[in-house]
């Protein structure tokens, strides 16, 4: 690396501001717009396939048809209405599930009794796919909003619990010792050492939870629903409207990407103290 720097002509070396040399191990510098490169490629393949007539419109509508359909759905307000309903369900389920997962993780991470009582049941729940519980939930709660939100909550709280609990348990014991040597009060210990120490785990759990929330949403909305994006798509299936189905899929995808992006942003902001491989 030194050799290549030396070999570079003097003028260009002076013109380029001193840049960080690339880390020899690790993935290297982030590409500009790297995140959208893959999706753009897929999109262009789809467009080419439709234009060339390789894709039957009954199987898969062309991108421009999907765009027009989306425009119509927005114009008559169906898209917004269904989106609002879906977003509300997912948001509520995510909020409640995150709260439950976090509290359970704290209880079981900070006390042996809590762990003995809570950890087993959560691990059992983890082994049962959320979808498998729907018949039981429908019997208990009917097919109303309550059932839908509880299904989402059940899909969300498990990853939040698992990763927060793991984060708590893997806090370096040397920091606990430090807290003891400073005679920190339990509240200060929790606020300054335990919670920040478990934050990376919690945020990782959130990333899984967000994905889980949309996943559960899709399932509950397509099974028995009278509103929401999933319902809109289910209706379109009955009329064979692939364009509407794709609008729904794209929406799900965008929502998933956006929410994951939001969590990642939060991660970057909250964990700026960390030096990792990706930096």
């Amino acid at each position, binding site marked *: 690396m030194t050799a290549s720097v030396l070999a570079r002509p003097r003028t260009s070396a002076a013109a380029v501001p001193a840049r960080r040399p690339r880390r020899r191990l690790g993935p290297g510098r982030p590409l500009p717009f790297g995140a959208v490169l893959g999706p753009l490629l897929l999109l262009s393949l789809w467009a080419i396939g439709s234009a060339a007539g390789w894709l039957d419109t009954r199987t898969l509508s062309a991108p421009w048809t999907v765009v027009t359909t989306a425009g119509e759905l927005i114009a008559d307000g169906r898209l917004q209405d269904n989106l609002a309903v879906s977003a509300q369900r997912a948001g509520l389920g995510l909020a409640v599930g995150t709260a439950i997962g976090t509290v359970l993780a704290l209880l079981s991470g900070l006390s042996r009794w809590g762990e003995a009582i809570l950890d087993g049941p959560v691990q059992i729940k983890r082994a049962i796919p959320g979808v498998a519980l729907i018949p039981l939930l429908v019997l208990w709660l009917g097919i109303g909003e309550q059932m839908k939100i509880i299904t989402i909550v059940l899909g969300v709280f498990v990853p939040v619990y698992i990763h927060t609990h793991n984060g708590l348990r893997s806090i370096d014991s040397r920091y606990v*010792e430090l807290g003891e*040597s400073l*005679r920190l009060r339990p509240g200060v210990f929790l606020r300054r050492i335990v919670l920040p120490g478990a934050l990376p785990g919690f945020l990782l759990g959130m990333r899984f939870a967000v994905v889980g929330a949309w996943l559960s949403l899709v399932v509950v909305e397509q099974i028995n629903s009278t509103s929401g994006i999933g319902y809109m798509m289910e209706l379109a299936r009955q009329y064979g409207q692939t364009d509407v189905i794709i609008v729904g899929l794209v929406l799900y995808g965008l929502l998933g990407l956006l929410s994951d992006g939001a969590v990642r942003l939060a991660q970057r902001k909250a964990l700026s103290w960390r030096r990792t491989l990706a930096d």
Partner: protein
Amino acid sequence: MATHPGGLTGTRTVRTRDLRRGFGDRLVLDGLDLEIGAGEFVALLGRSGSGKSTLLRALAGLDRDVAGSGAIDVPEKSSVVFQDARLLPWQHVLDNVVLGLSGPDAPQRGRAALAEVGLSGREQAWPHQLSGGEQQRVALARALVSEPDLLLADEPFGALDALTRLRMHDLLRELCRRHRPAVLLVTHDVDEAVTLADRVLVIDQGRITVDTTIDLPEPRSHRQPRFQAYRESLLRSLGVETEG
């Protein structure tokens, strides 16, 4: 300045009687008696595995899971400096310093403590942005900001290079002169012990076997003939033969 083992002058701050600590069948501290006077700087030497850290952790109250017995009398206000700086990576430097403080004047005291260790202006840095020596200085500031009566330090400079270590010696001496805590400094470096301490102890077989008052004028240096004499006698009691 030096206090004699029996505590002829000054008041005792640390006192242990018949201290025993063991892991499994092995007794690491075997009826250890120790006294440290107020403001006295004591260095503790000993072979690796002789129980220096075990003793220090016992004094710091960090060994609740270790089997043992004996009486320990230490001041309420005591601080520990570990071999690693042990800064919380998710807290800014200043927040690390004031971690154990409460009250509205905490930030101000933290700033003053950082200034004392020469780190003014680095209050809002992350710990990973500091060098090893700077991190250890933050740890010193954190230990001294609470104005402790006893400072317990377990090889605090062990991970630093020789040059930085010399600077840290000056800093520690200066800080101790100003704040006058009693100090128990665990080290494996005989020169460090003779340079800094009023009294040097050697631990062996679970007891204090050597207790030497270092009676040298400041500033101490290798060139003082009596420095060499202390050094050699301590090395001998550690089982190291020196030539000359």
